[in-house]
């Protein structure tokens, strides 16, 4: 269990910048998930922490000790790879004990520690098997076991569930949460799956283009995103974004028009709206949009198709301006009408400027 601090870390491969000025402070025992689209730099950041990549600039501290120049094996980190990276010619026990063997530990101690980790992960009966004789989930557990045996200060997981089927993924997620509780270890987990991030993390780091977009608790990111990227990335189905123009604003409100290309307008409570802003993007999550009667504050939507999932139905449509729109309906079955009107819950509306920055009301 250890605290991890990343200070102004940047990483380039030649002239290609991958990470830019990353600053994070991860508390001891915390489960932090790095999430972002492919190529956003999340795996590079993880590999930089563990020492498999060298940072171009900045410092990394584990338990207050600068580890930039410390060998990867001596940083006190253990990594679970996406491909599991199990040695195919070694048995499960040999795989799990390899790090201790390299450290020159006596065989009896290796056997004990491997046995303890195997008990935690219910691998006792598989210790003499080779990786080729294991299922995906079992391989995953062995890879985690190899990390546990090393008793690291920080566990690093690089998309460890991406090779598993959907059912096994859900099961392994629950096992990881349970493992984190039992070990109470600092864990960093990389994924591109925001559902995985939301379910596992104490806090989430959203990365895009090598830049930290937001670092916070899952529901804070969901409810209070700092920018359009985070708003769109976190949540499934994703947030709807509708272009709108600012018709007028006052000290405690703003009135938007041409919402989603429609002729409807909407007056929203908003303290100290910047009058220089003439165009905004209105963000609304599917659960904050509801089908209703035609009215001045509802936007017409043409429904293209419905996803009837049983407990909930998602209606996929388009506004008059062509913006895609998803509406959550708690009614099990959709009647089938195509022309609808959608009203917004004012508390669920988030506004962004044209550069994607969140527009926040003045709290004072």
């Amino acid at each position, binding site marked *: 269990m250890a605290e991890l601090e990343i200070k102004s870390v940047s990483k380039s491969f030649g002239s290609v910048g991958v990470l830019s000025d990353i600053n994070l402070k991860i508390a001891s025992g915390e489960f932090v998930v790095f999430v972002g689209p492919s190529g956003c730099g999340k795996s590079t950041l993880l590999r930089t922490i563990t020492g498999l990549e060298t940072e171009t600039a900045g410092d990394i501290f584990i338990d207050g000790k600068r580890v930039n120049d410390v060998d*990867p094996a001596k940083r006190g980190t253990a990594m679970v790879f996406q491909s599991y*990276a199990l040695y195919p010619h070694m048995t499960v026990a040999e795989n799990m004990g390899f790090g201790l063997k390299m450290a020159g530990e006596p065989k009896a101690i290796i056997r004990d520690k491997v046995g303890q980790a195997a008990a935690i992960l219910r691998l006792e009966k598989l210790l003499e098997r080779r990786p080729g004789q294991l299922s995906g989930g079992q391989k995953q557990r062995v890879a985690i076991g190899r990390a546990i045996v090393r008793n690291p200060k920080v566990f690093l997981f690089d998309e460890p569930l991406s090779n598993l089927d959907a059912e096994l993924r859900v099961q392994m997620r629950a096992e990881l949460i349970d493992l984190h509780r039992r070990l109470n270890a600092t864990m960093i987990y990389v994924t591109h799956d925001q559902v995985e991030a939301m379910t596992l993390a104490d806090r989430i780091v959203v990365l895009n283009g090598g830049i930290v977009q937001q670092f916070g608790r899952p529901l804070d990111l969901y409810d209070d995103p700092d920018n359009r990227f985070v708003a769109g990335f976190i949540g499934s189905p994703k947030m709807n974004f509708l272009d709108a123009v600012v018709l007028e604003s006052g000290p405690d409100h703003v009135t938007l028009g041409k919402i989603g290309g429609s002729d409807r307008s909407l007056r929203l409570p908003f303290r100290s709206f910047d009058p220089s802003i003439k165009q905004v993007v209105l963000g609304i999550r599917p659960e904050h949009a509801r089908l209703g009667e035609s009215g001045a504050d509802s936007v017409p939507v043409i429904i293209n198709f419905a996803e009837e999932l049983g407990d909930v139905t998602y209606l996929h449509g388009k506004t008059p301006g062509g913006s895609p729109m998803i509406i959550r309906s708690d009614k099990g079955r959709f009647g089938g009408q195509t022309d609808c009107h959608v009203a917004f819950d004012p508390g669920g509306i988030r506004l962004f400027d044209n550069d994607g920055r969140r527009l926040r009301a003045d709290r004072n």
Partner: protein
Amino acid sequence: MNARRHLPHYAMVLPFALLFAAFFLYPIISGFYYSFHDWNAATEARFIGLANYEAVLKSRDFARAMTNLGIYIAITVPLGIAVALALALLVDSFTGFWANFFRSAFFLPVVLPAFLAATIWRWMYAPNFGLVNMVLGWFGMPSVNFLNDTGTMLYALIAVDVWVSAGFNMVILLAGLKNIPQDLYEAARLDGASRLQQVRYVTIPMLAPILFFVVTYGFISALQVFDVPWLLTGSSFTAYGGRRNALLFPVMDMMGRAFGAVRFGEATAYGFILTFVIILFTAVMFGLRAWRTPK
């Protein structure tokens, strides 16, 4: 119906089958027949039972050739593979121009005709003015007659054969190295394995199937060693094997008995003894592999 359907398949196999029958099958069968006969190609073959086999196995030259072969194999195969692996690891650590340069440079001896390789090395080993003796001279060491001193001849040959074969094995091992997933090395690095330990615990086990091929092929090639010692010693069918038969090998001995002494029956028996040794050895290798492969 079935035969008619397969007719085109048989037709396509036929040219190869005919050539194989004419140039492989017939010589093998007739060779086996003559191995039990006294035959010099000019006179009628006379059945003599196992006398040819007995003559070969009891001859002093056969014992010498086999002894030379044993020493040669025991050193050449492991040394050749160790050198090839070292070169492959070296080339693998480079990228771009230097990787291509070293790969081509180390492969060059493989494409050299044997006579050219032997000529180069005869010059390198030449007493007094040869490159090797020149280098020895720089360190104040006396000149050595590598190809005429019975104490050095075999080792001089081994050096040439390692030089010639290393490039071929290197290319095969290099292809194997490229197939080892990088994350295994990264996992080993995180596990605290040094570069040497990564070679010991990751590279070599992961190369096992390719090493099996390289070792088996190396042994089979070594059992048939002929051209380089023949050329290094300037042998002919009547005088071969170098000074005091220090570079006498089975294939060379077989050729001498056939085309020098004109005892074709004895030479074919020699060939079948050698074939038996090669088959036996290959079977042992496959057996070992099956035993080592996890169930």
